[in-house]
């Protein structure tokens, strides 16, 4: 559009478009480039919102077959799968050359004003069907029974870049949860035991951000080397004394991490004592290298939780984890300090990071303990089978056991005292 095309402005009309810009700002605005797209475009171009059809027969009754990890058409039994994102988007390579923060399309900033509900027009009959993307990415058309899918990335954080399909079946998950709980029967809360129904386990796709990063970490502190050790008599006892040299220690290490995995939902990242979210954290890691391109048919029959944390929210978490990783790397170089090292300051310089959002599969059994108002989880990693859980305890049984052991030990101590008196 040229200047001439604009309508003539009424000279009497009040005009205010904010405080005047400086010359530099006006020049920058004039040179402004168009809004950039995502750093890595992960949209599955073959799929649009609505109906995912079987490529062979056209049916929409498509879901994941966990035993093979492939999508299966329930009508003609044809099986197929999406490509791995690792090769498709080059996620496994170039970590050493990462520069700045690279964000894939599905990990973009969540817009505050975008609703969770998405209304789709059924491609089969034209009915309007609502999908609540906070909990599910599919819905069945209640008129013609077609399955409708959300495939396009919306700015509400619901559609990730990739999905790691369930591998463990429901029966296998039930078996693992039963085994985990049966080892913890004796001191479990009686009500938990009574109400324990592992068949109620739910398959959930939880949102994670998977990060590749390159960083340089530096630590400064004090280390001590023992120079002498001797004993002195003090009354009836002997006391050991030490002498030591104190060193100012500094260590640096450059490192790259591949597929560091961080929870993308605020509710799951809350690790204070009142939750059992650490249980779900413990079943990490997943084999994220096997994640495939987004196709919401993988989620049919499972629930999902929407991502609500952005890259900016999680950058400090990544930095802390990189610092911890660096600390574990330099620990091996501290052998000479036999009295230990006290780190006093640390620094991380993140050269580059790449963020990809993924739905990862978890079998989740939850139990709400009313008297303590605690939600206990038993979680199974639906790829590796790693199981972790929190079982509510019966306090009086635990205290009885502790008192029994205490009394027994006290009896032995008393007997020793009497015998040696």
């Amino acid at each position, binding site marked *: 559009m040229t200047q001439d095309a604009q309508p003539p402005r009424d000279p009497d009309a009040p005009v205010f478009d904010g405080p005047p810009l400086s010359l530099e700002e006006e020049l920058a605005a004039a040179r402004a480039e168009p809004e950039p797209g995502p750093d890595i475009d992960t949209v599955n171009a073959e799929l649009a919102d609505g109906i995912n059809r079987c490529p062979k027969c056209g049916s929409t009754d498509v879901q994941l077959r966990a035993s093979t990890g492939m999508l299966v058409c329930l009508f003609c039994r044809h099986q197929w799968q999406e490509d791995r994102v690792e090769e498709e988007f080059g996620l496994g390579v170039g970590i050493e050359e990462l520069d700045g923060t690279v964000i894939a399309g599905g990990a973009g900033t969540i817009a505050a004003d975008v609703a969770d509900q998405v209304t789709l027009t059924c491609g089969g009959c034209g009915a309007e069907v609502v999908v609540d993307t906070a909990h599910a990415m599919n819905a069945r058309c209640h008129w013609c029974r077609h399955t409708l899918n959300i495939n396009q990335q919306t700015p509400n954080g619901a559609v990730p870049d990739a999905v790691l399909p369930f591998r463990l079946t429901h029966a296998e998950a039930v078996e693992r949860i039963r085994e985990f709980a049966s080892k913890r029967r004796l001191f479990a809360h009686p009500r938990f035991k009574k109400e324990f129904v592992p068949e109620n386990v739910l398959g959930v796709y939880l949102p994670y951000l998977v990060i590749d990063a390159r960083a340089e970490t530096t630590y400064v502190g004090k280390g001590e080397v023992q120079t002498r050790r001797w004993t002195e008599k003090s009354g009836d006892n002997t006391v050991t004394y030490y*002498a030591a040299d104190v060193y100012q220690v500094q260590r640096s290490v450059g490192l790259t991490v591949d597929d560091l995995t961080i929870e993308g939902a605020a509710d799951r990242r809350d690790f204070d004592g009142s939750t059992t979210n650490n249980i779900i954290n413990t079943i990490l890691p997943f084999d994220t290298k096997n994640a495939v391109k987004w196709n919401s048919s993988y989620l049919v029959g499972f629930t999902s939780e929407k991502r609500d944390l952005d890259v900016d929210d999680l950058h400090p978490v990544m930095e802390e984890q990189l610092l911890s990783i660096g600390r574990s790397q330099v620990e091996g170089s501290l052998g000479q300090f036999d009295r230990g090292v006290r780190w006093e300051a640390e620094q991380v310089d993140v050269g580059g990071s790449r963020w990809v959002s993924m739905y990862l599969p978890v079998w989740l059994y939850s139990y709400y303990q009313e008297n303590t108002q605690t939600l206990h989880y038993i979680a199974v990693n639906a790829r590796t089978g790693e199981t972790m859980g929190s079982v509510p305890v019966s306090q009086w049984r635990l205290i009885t056991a502790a008192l029994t052991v205490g009394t027994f*030990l006290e009896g032995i101590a008393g007997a020793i005292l009497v015998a040696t008196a």
Partner: protein
Amino acid sequence: MIDVVVMAGDSAPVWILAAGPAGAAATYWALYRYYRNTDKSHAYERDTIIEAQQVTGGQEKVDHVSRTRKSSIDGDNSSKHRQRVQRLR
């Protein structure tokens, strides 16, 4: 401990009576942790694919402690990787 018992002469020290309460507390904690797993979390320091370059750095003697009863440095955090210290920017 044995040294001390021998030095104390004929009778065992009275603090041996602390074994009862200590054992009771330890039993409670061990069982509680086995059931609730409150101390568990993802060991990302170990379970992530990490490629580290060579560790560099140095040390310089700055002081000498000539007599202390402590067998190790105060506040040793060399293996507490998640205990954060002052951040340099």
